């Protein structure tokens, strides 16, 4: 593919580090879950790191994102502190939501992460609303709205994208198509090959990006963001990707053919980016190992912080209902 611009070295290194951070974070969450230390359920982002990192690397800190039930990666990519993300997942008072949200509802407004909603597709009109707010306040921020292939069959997809389109709102709709809505294969519930085709119904650009290639996602997002900042309206970017694990913690994902899983694992976005960085002489093997070690230490620190943090007091359940 041709990139509009290869990001500077510093940026590439940061992108790689963030992808590894998400991967190791999720593997650690899975490990803690296996030890029965994570209440409730988890939806791991493993395998989709190139999407969150590609998108968020093309955004500014004051830009917004909205997220989904599979949202840990979005938080980390937008710059949230892994310590507080982990603490929230463990239900601790030091978590971003003081233990009230958990894995499916993490938000960090300080970095423009407007929160994860666990109702599939519900974030789409909310993202459009943040876009309307930007337009009315006359700033040049943009909003990136993450959702899955499953969400594109919700009415909110139609209503929200249409509204953003007619009002030329600065929103980037990012469909992470990992081929399955829980266990339902895309082809069972959609006649079109790609979600991006649906963009034509709203008169906006629909772009398909290789969701396992962080630079492709980054590039598509940069273009969409530039368009949005100029007041030219939203773009729908469909990132074709794959989740390495099941839908949630109870799912062994037996509905996926073995060959399909193997083919996608071979296209692991982190492995591919690592190869790319070596090829471009951005990093050496030694430097890569050094980054991996540093990130692993940061995750260990986050786990320790979360484990040592106190649970909220029961009475705190009654707080934060009203402002």
């Amino acid at each position, binding site marked *: 593919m041709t990139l509009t611009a290869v990001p500077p070295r510093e940026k590439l290194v940061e992108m790689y580090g963030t992808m590894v951070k998400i991967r190791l974070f999720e593997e650690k969450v899975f490990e803690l879950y296996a030890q029965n230390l994570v209440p409730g359920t988890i939806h791991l982002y493993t395998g989709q790191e190139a999407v969150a990192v590609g998108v968020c690397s093309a955004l500014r800190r004051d830009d*917004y994102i*909205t997220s989904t039930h599979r949202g840990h990666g979005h938080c980390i990519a937008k710059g949230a502190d892994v310590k507080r993300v982990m603490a929230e997942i463990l239900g601790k008072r030091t*978590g*971003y*939501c*003081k*233990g*009230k*949200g958990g894995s499916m*509802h993490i*938000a*960090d*407004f300080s970095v423009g992460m*407007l*929160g994860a*909603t666990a*109702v599939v597709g*519900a974030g*789409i*009109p*909310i*993202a*459009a*609303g*943040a*876009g*309307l*707010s*930007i*337009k*009315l*306040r006359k700033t040049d921020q943009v*909003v990136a709205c993450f959702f899955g292939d499953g969400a594109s069959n919700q*009415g*909110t997809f*139609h*209503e*929200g994208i*249409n*509204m953003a389109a*007619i009002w030329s709102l600065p929103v980037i709709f990012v469909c992470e198509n990992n081929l399955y809505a829980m266990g339902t294969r895309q082809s069972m519930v959609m006649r079109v090959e790609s979600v991006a085709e649906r963009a034509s119904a709203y008169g906006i650009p629909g772009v398909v990006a290789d969701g396992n290639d962080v630079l492709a996602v980054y590039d598509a997002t940069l273009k969409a963001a530039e368009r949005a900042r100029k007041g030219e309206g939203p773009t729908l970017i469909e990132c074709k990707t794959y989740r390495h694990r099941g839908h949630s913690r109870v799912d062994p994902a037996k509905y996926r053919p073995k060959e399909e899983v193997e083919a996608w694992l071979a296209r692991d976005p982190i492995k591919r980016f690592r190869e790319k960085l070596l090829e471009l002489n951005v990093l050496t093997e030694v430097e890569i190992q050094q980054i991996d070690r540093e990130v692993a230490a940061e995750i260990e620190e986050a786990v320790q912080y979360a484990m040592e943090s106190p649970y909220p007091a029961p009475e705190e359940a009654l*707080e*934060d*209902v*009203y*402002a």
Partner: protein
Amino acid sequence: MRKITYREALREALREEMRRDPAVFLLGEDIGRYWGGAFKVTEGLAEEFGDERVRDTPISESAIIGVAVGAAITGMRPVAEIMFGDLTALAMDQIANQAAKLRYMFGGQAKVPLVIRTPFGGGVNIAAHHSQCLEAWFMHVPGLYVAVPSTPYDAKGLLKTAIRGNNPVIFCEHKLLYPIEGEVPEEEYTVPFGVADIKREGEDVTVVATLYMVHRALRAAEVLAKEKGISVEVVDPRTLTPLDKKAIINSVKKTGRLVVVSEDCKTAGVTAEIAAMVAEEAIDYLDAPIKRVAEPDTPIPFSPPLERRVIPDEKAIIRAVEEVV
């Protein structure tokens, strides 16, 4: 004091708040310069504030509220209009799961200063999809406030409070109230949430009523006073969430008798909540069983005699009062 209609009072509140705060904007179906709102509440506002701040939307109730939520959590103060209260059903996820819960789920990080104006109520023969009173749906969702103004004065004052607040408010209007006139001062005022208003003082029976039922209760009280010598106190909570329990209980302490009137179906409705609250917190002050005047558990029918059968009228209120004295 000057008199204006309920509709004009609402419009004044919107106009004054939009002049006061540039973060306030309106969105909804046909609220702009071409129609001015199905009930003409927003008429003339697009001319003053422009189409950006008085925003006509597609027929997409879920996105109207979703967009309003997204704007609210990023610094704006949207006032969304849902053309008929019944149509809030189309936006229920955005209202009940998003607007109401974001603040809580995110541990207090979000503020959702959002007002959803919508007309409820029957009496105009438009049948089951345009006539319901659904306040109780929203009372059942923690995180929402529910305002139920019955007079032009309350409508203006409560709407200003709703717009200035930092929480999502379901602002329930009533179709039959729009043309009603009442005294509204020229000078600035607001009406606080959670403060009931005694619409008529009395000694023998407390009647709690909201929206259009306040007016029916007042007419019933007039008849009862003249014809039966029964003194009725009419208490209008003005907001159902928060509910001014103290005012209701204080009135019950004085009268010892309670009739609760509401234009919604009886099961799990507004009257059920208020009756249960008094039974739980003030039963010792009651000298008679609590009576509820509400709709039977049916959809709202179309034909005038059918609709009259289900919506509580003065006679039903009079009957209930006579049963408890």
